C-alpha cells in the first residue's frame, strides 16, 4: 500500500484517465454531500421542533405550596404552607447528583417599574443564576445574574426584551437604572424567551435581593429543578418521577404534612407534557437514519458498480499487464489502491463542501420547523470512513475478478 512505485503508477493512471476518475469521484462526492446535508437537515428539524414546543426546559419540575386538606400531627387542616430557603437547601443537599439546574424563586406579580418618564407593571422575580436555563432565557445584551451578585445582594436587574422596549425604547439599557418599588436597580442584561412576549415582560433580580427588598425574610414562592437529559422518554420519565417522589417525601416530612395530603404541595412535572416531543424526535431520528442509511447503501452500490465497469473496461489492459508479468495480487492491489484513493479524496471533498455549506447557510435557515441545521463532525467523518471501507470491500470483488482474467481471453482479438 505504501510502495512509492505503486503510488506513481496509480497517479499516472488517474491523471491519464481524467473522465473516469472524475465520474467515480463525482458520484462518491455527491453521495457524501447528500448524506451530510440530510444529517444536517435532520438536526435542523430536531432543533426546530424543540424550539417550537419548549418555552421552558422540557424536563423542569416545579414545586409550589398550597393548603393542607388533612389535619396532621396536631395541625388543623387548611393550614397554608410556606416554603423557605431551608426547604430548598434540604432538597438540593439530598439530590446533588441527580439535579442539573436548580433555582428557588420569590416574585411579585405586578411591580411598578420605571425609567425616566416611562413606567409599567411587570413581574419581578428573584432567582438564582441557573434560572436562565430553567426558563430558557437567551441573553441578547449584557449578562444574566451570577452567584456573586446574589451573595453580595446586589441591586441588579435582568430585564425582558418587552420591558426594554417599553422603558428604554431604542437606547441600550445596560448600566442604566430602573426603579423597582422605589429602589434603583442597575440593568445588567436583556433577555428573550422562546415563550414569547408574555415571558419577556419579566424582570429577574438576585433572590437574596428580592427577599430583602420585598420584606420576605427567607420565604420562597416556588422552586424549580431539571435533571440531565436522558436517551429516551421512558428513562427520562422514570428518573423524573423518582426524583419528584423522593422530593415530595422529603418536603412532607420536613413541613409536617400528611403523606396522603394532595393539596399541600403541588409538584408539576413538565416531563409528562413532553412525551409527544420525545416521540416525535425519536420517530424523526429513525426516519432520517433510515434515509441516511439508504443513501449510504446507494452510494456503496454505486461505487461497486463503477468499479465493476472500470474492471470491465480495463480487461484488456489487465490481460496485457498479466502477460508482462503482473501477479494477480498486484492487479488487486492496483485496482483497490486506485479506488480507495479516489473514493477517499472525493469523499473528503463532498464532506468538506457539505459541512461548509451547512456552516455558512445553516444559521440563516429559520423556518417553522427547521432551525440551524448542522451536523456532528464525528458522525460525518465516520460515515466517510464507512463509505471508503465499504467501497473497498465492494471494489474488492471486481478487482478479484479482474485478477482472475486469463490473459489469453483478454488479449484475444475480437
Amino acid at each position: 500500500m505504501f510502495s512509492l512505485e505503486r503510488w506513481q503508477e496509480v497517479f499516472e493512471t488517474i491523471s491519464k484517465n481524467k473522465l473516469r476518475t472524475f465520474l467515480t469521484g463525482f458520484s462518491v462526492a455527491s453521495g457524501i454531500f447528500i448524506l451530510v446535508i440530510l444529517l444536517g437537515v435532520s438536526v435542523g428539524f430536531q432543533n426546530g421542533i424543540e424550539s417550537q414546543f419548549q418555552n421552558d426546559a422540557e424536563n423542569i419540575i416545579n414545586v409550589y405550596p398550597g393548603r393542607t386538606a388533612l389535619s396532621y400531627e396536631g395541625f388543623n387542616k387548611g393550614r397554608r404552607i410556606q416554603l423557605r430557603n431551608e426547604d430548598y437547601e434540604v432538597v438540593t443537599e439530598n439530590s446533588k447528583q441527580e439535579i442539573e439546574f436548580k433555582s428557588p424563586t420569590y416574585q411579585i406579580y405586578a411591580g411598578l417599574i420605571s425609567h425616566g418618564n416611562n413606567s409599567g407593571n411587570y413581574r419581578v422575580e428573584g432567582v438564582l443564576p441557573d434560572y436562565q436555563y430553567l426558563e430558557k432565557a437567551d441573553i441578547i445584551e449584557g449578562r444574566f445574574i451570577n452567584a456573586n451578585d446574589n451573595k453580595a445582594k446586589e441591586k441588579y436587574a435582568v430585564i425582558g426584551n418587552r420591558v426594554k422596549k417599553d422603558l428604554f425604547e431604542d437606547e441600550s439599557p445596560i448600566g442604566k437604572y430602573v426603579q423597582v418599588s422605589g429602589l434603583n436597580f442597575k440593568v445588567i442584561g436583556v433577555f428573550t424567551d422562546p415563550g414569547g412576549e408574555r415571558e419577556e415582560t419579566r424582570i429577574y433580580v438576585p433572590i437574596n435581593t428580592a427577599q430583602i427588598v420585598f420584606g420576605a425574610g427567607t420565604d420562597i414562592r416556588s422552586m424549580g429543578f431539571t435533571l440531565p437529559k436522558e436517551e429516551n422518554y421512558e428513562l427520562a420519565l422514570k428518573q423524573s418521577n423518582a426524583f419528584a417522589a423522593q422530593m415530595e417525601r422529603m418536603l412532607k416530612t420536613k413541613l409536617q404534612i400528611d403523606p396522603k395530603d394532595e393539596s399541600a404541595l403541588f409538584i408539576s412535572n413538565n416531563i409528562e407534557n413532553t412525551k409527544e416531543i420525545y416521540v416525535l424526535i425519536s420517530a424523526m431520528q429513525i426516519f432520517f437514519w433510515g434515509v441516511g442509511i439508504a443513501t449510504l447503501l446507494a452510494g456503496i452500490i454505486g461505487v461497486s458498480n463503477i468499479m465493476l465497469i472500470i474492471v470491465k473496461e480495463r480487461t484488456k489492459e489487465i490481460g496485457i499487464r498479466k502477460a508482462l508479468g503482473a501477479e494477480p495480487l498486484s492487479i488487486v492491489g492496483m485496482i483497490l489502491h486506485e479506488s480507495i484513493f479516489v473514493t477517499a479524496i472525493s469523499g473528503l471533498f463532498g464532506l468538506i463542501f457539505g459541512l461548509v455549506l451547512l456552516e455558512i447557510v445553516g444559521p440563516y435557515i429559520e423556518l417553522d420547523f427547521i432551525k440551524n441545521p448542522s451536523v456532528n463532525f464525528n458522525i460525518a467523518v465516520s460515515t466517510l470512513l464507512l463509505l471508503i471501507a465499504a467501497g473497498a470491500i465492494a471494489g474488492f470483488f471486481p478487482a478479484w475478478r479482474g485478477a482472475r482474467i486469463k490473459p489469453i481471453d483478454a488479449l484475444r482479438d475480437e
Partner: protein
Amino acid sequence: MIEIKNLHKSYKMGKNSLHVLKGINFNVEEGELVSIMGSSGSGKSTLLNILGMLDEADEGSYTLDGVPIKNLNEKLAAQYRNKFLGFIFQSFNLINYKSALDNVALPLYYQGVNRSERMERSMAYLEKVGLAAWAHHKPNELSGGQKQRVAIARALASDPKVLLADELTGALDSKTSYEIMDLIQQINDEGRTILVVTHEEDIAQMSKRIVNLKDGVIIDDRKITQVRAIQNV
C-alpha cells in the same frame, strides 16, 4: 532452450471435446529463429499460448531453460513470464493511455526495477528499435509499424530468454512487415531465441527453421536458408 515432449491439449466445446494438439514433440536451441506455420485451426496459436504460459497443456512436458513448466499457480506463471518471455502480438497490445516509453517500462515495473533505471533502460530499447524520438508519444499517435516496434522494445525490456511473436506482421503492409522482420533478424543475430507464429510464407522464409503444423501434429520440421529481410525492403 525449449523442450516439448508429447504435448496434448483439447478444448471442451459444449458436449464435444476438440482435440487441438495431438502429441507435439520439438526442441528449440538457444539462438534459433523458428517459424511455426499452419493454416487456421492447425493449433499453432494454442501451441504458442502454452509456450507463453498463458494456457496449460493437458498432457506432456514442457521445459524452458532447464526449468520444468508444470502445475504453475498464477503467481509463479506471472513471475516466469516476466523472467523468461517477451510477447509480441498481432494487435500490438499497447496500453493506450501510456506513452511509448512507459509501455516499454512496464515489464521492468513488474520486475521491481526503480523508476529512474526503468526509464533509462526503456529509453535504450526504444533507441534500439529506432523510436527514441517518439518516446513520449501515445500509441494512437504512432503508425502500425511504430507501434509494433514499441511492442518489440517492450518484449526486449525484461531481457527474456525467448521472444514469442504471434502473427507480428499480420496487421502491417508488406514493406512495414519486412522492416519489422529486419529488426527481428537483427535481434536474433545478437543471439536471442525467437519463435514466430505466422501463416505467411514470405515471413516464414525469413526465419532459420520452419515447423509446419496441421491438425494438431507436426508434419514437417526443417532448417532453411534464411532470406534476409533487408533485401526486400
